[in-house]
């Protein structure tokens, strides 16, 4: 066996009782580009953070050139020659490029210039070193991070989804640079969601699923479909749930979006009819949440047309959308959806205060609304005045849903409605979605859990790299097809 640059054996990592890595082996040869793949939550980011010193493993061993190492901090990992190019480059926007590069290095101006010159030339990093770093493009910021790593004599470079914010041409340029670095004997770990580019640059591919290595082979022996199959959960074929009793669909659309664009997504069209669940599937970073936020007017720079209940809303905000019958239930309920320290009731009725009295609140009506939703959603609390922050995650989510539904919307956008909640609460949320649909409400369901989309949705839009790349209907919706489209593989014709 060739000499191993980096070697990990039987790595375990547990977060608050939940194992995230379950005995992972991983290695890297000098001059090799080793791609690491896996769906959301497969453990690949955790593994990389262990290598880069941001996390410490709970069990297992790590060797660098045969020597056991255990970096205690990112800085310690850098001293060992391991540098992680983060997904979001860490630049100091108000310092010059040169200062950004020199930061943290004990090098005088002259030795720095001597070391920097050939590096910059080799990478084709054409930028004014005295320019403020805030003016660099994302691609240039990434190059800056690469140069930082090389200035630290890195032997292992880790790229965490480096292309997620790059254009096609910028990505091609980055791949050329990765190949050039590999030729110089640097080992590269490449994390990506995009199978096409993985097949293009990687020498070897490892697939993680649920904290375990499920596939590891030379890239030339693998096809994109092998990779997708490896990433799918074992229970991919299970399809037990009740067949969605023909929803009351039809009538005029409750939500129409035409040509909506922003920084994170481009030219999105969608139409939502009453009584249907429209799933939006896609990987983290594909632009789903940004699309939802733009629809309800949270991104002032988005361009395009949005109609709610047939009414065009060129200048939107969430309150206006709600007034027209569209509510958005955000992904991060703690940051955007709930008053943690206030009585749960206050969150539930926050959207309908004007209906509860003109100046003074009618406490009895308010409590009646609260009790209705506690029953409807099966919310478990000691009383309506229990602070929402003391509820379990599932019940918090139900309180947030009650807030949205108390406004009696025609259309609801649910962003990751079941993230971080337990199985029974999840059932309740699913039940709620089905009952909404029966009442003729249109539901847009955004979820990273493709199983959830497959189970609930009547139609599925798949997003990839900021574009809606396909639509699946009824019987066409399967876990495999949604997964393939999410990873950017072309959709096969319906058979």
């Amino acid at each position: 066996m060739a000499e191993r640059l980096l070697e990990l054996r039987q790595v375990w990592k547990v977060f608050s009782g939940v194992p995230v890595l379950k005995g992972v082996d991983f290695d890297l040869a000098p001059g090799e580009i080793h791609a690491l793949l896996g769906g959301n939550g497969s453990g690949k980011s955790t593994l990389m953070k262990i290598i880069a010193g941001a996390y410490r493993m709970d069990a297992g061993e790590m060797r660098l050139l045969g020597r056991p190492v255990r970096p205690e901090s990112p800085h310690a990992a850098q001293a060992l020659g391991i540098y992680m190019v983060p997904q979001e480059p860490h630049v100091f926007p108000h310092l010059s490029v040169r200062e950004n590069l020199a930061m943290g290095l004990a090098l005088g101006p002259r030795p720095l210039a001597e070391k920097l010159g050939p590096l910059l030339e080799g990478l084709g990093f054409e930028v004014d070193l005295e320019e403020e770093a805030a003016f660099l493009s994302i691609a240039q910021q990434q190059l800056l991070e690469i140069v930082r790593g090389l200035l630290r004599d890195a032997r292992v470079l880790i790229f965490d989804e480096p292309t997620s914010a790059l254009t096609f041409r910028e990505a091609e340029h980055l791949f050329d640079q990765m190949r050039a670095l590999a030729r110089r004997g640097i080992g590269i770990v490449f994390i990506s969601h995009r199978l096409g580019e993985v097949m293009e640059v990687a020498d070897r591919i490892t697939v993680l699923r649920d904290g375990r290595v499920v596939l590891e082979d030379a890239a030339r022996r693998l096809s994109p479909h092998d990779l997708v199959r490896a990433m799918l959960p074992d229970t991919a074929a299970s399809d037990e749930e009740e067949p969605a009793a023909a929803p009351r669909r039809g009538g005029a659309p409750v939500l129409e979006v035409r040509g909506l664009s922003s920084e994170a997504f481009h030219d999105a069209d969608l139409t939502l009819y009453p009584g249907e669940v429209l799933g939006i599937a896609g990987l983290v970073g594909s632009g789903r949440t940004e699309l939802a936020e733009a629809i309800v007017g949270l991104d002032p720079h988005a361009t395009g047309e949005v109609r709610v209940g047939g009414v065009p809303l060129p200048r939107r905000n969430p309150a206006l959308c709600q007034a027209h019958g569209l509510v958005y239930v955000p992904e991060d309920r703690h940051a955007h959806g709930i008053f943690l320290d206030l009585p749960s009731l206050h969150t539930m009725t926050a959207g309908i205060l004007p209906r509860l009295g003109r100046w003074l609140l009618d406490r009895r009506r308010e409590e009646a609304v609260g009790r209705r939703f506690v029953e409807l959603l099966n919310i478990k609390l000691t009383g309506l005045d229990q602070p929402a922050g003391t509820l379990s995650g599932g019940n918090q989510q139900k309180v947030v849903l009650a807030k949205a539904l108390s406004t009696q919307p025609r259309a609801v956008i649910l962003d990751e409605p079941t993230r971080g909640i337990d199985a029974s609460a999840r059932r309740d949320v699913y039940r709620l979605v089905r009952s909404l649909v029966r009442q003729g409400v249109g539901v847009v369901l955004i979820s990273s859990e493709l199983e959830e989309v497959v189970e609930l949705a009547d139609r599925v839009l798949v997003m990839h790299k900021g574009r809606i790349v396909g639509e699946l209907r009824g019987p066409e919706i399967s876990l495999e097809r949604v997964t393939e489209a999410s990873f950017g593989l072309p959709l096969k014709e319906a058979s």
Partner: protein
Amino acid sequence: MRVSRELLVTGLLVALILLTALANPHVLQFKSLVEILNASLTLVLITLGEMFVILTRGIDVSVGASAGLAATVLGTVLNLGWGLPAAIGAALATGLAAGAVNAFGITVLRVPPIIMTLGTLGIYRGLMRIITGGSWIENLPQSIKAPNLWHFLGVPFFVWVTLAVLLLTAWVALRYRPARYFYAVGDNEAGAYLLGLPVRATQFLAYTLAGLFAALAAVVFTSQIGFVSMNAAEGYELKAIAANVLGGVSLTGGVGTPLGAAVGALFMTAVHSMLIFLGVPGVWDNAFAGVILLLVVFADFRLRRSLELRRRQARIQGEPAGGEAR
């Protein structure tokens, strides 16, 4: 080329003086200009200290109290018969200690800066009264008042001292490599940590420097007025923050220069002086300074925002988010 805030405020300062001169030409006399400078020294020094804290994205509202405490120690030990150098040493040590206590609470005990320094603001003011029993310190020896009367080329000694301190600070901030840490920590704390910068040590140093500069200011104003009141330097914490903002030191950290901070402080005091020259009653001072601060900051904010907006829109239109062509 962007107009730097330092230039903008310097230009405004010159305009302010010239406008005042239209109404009252006396303002342009050498003596008047020197007097304006002399009156600004306390605020300039406190502002420079505060600048280090704001650069790291922190805040210190105890600097006025630290200055008051240092002045109290200075006056007390002078009246106990200490020599001038020893007394100044004691005052500077007091400021250093006051800053270090803030630094310890913020970087080691992790108390949020505003809360920590609000607490010590009360403590330091309280200590002043405990030390003196609540009365002013008067009858200071001549030795402390003398330096205020020294002149060189017609300019008071303390103006030269402050200028030297300013130039030293500016040189350090520009040239001394670890001084860049203040900017880096304030600009992107997580990034600074990942690159192995001493984040907490930098923050510790910033608050300690704020205390030291406050003590320096205490020595200057005690010499200038010749007694120590229990309200000495009261309100200077907010003036120092305002002067920094005016001079282009961003409250969100990482942006600003010592020269900008100093010009901001000079401008703040010059507004007061100009109102005197214009014969405007002193009761208008604070309101006037507040309005000017808001105007400058608002104009600057609008300018930056429109630039940012144009950049973002260019990005959306110029580049489809996907680029799917493979």
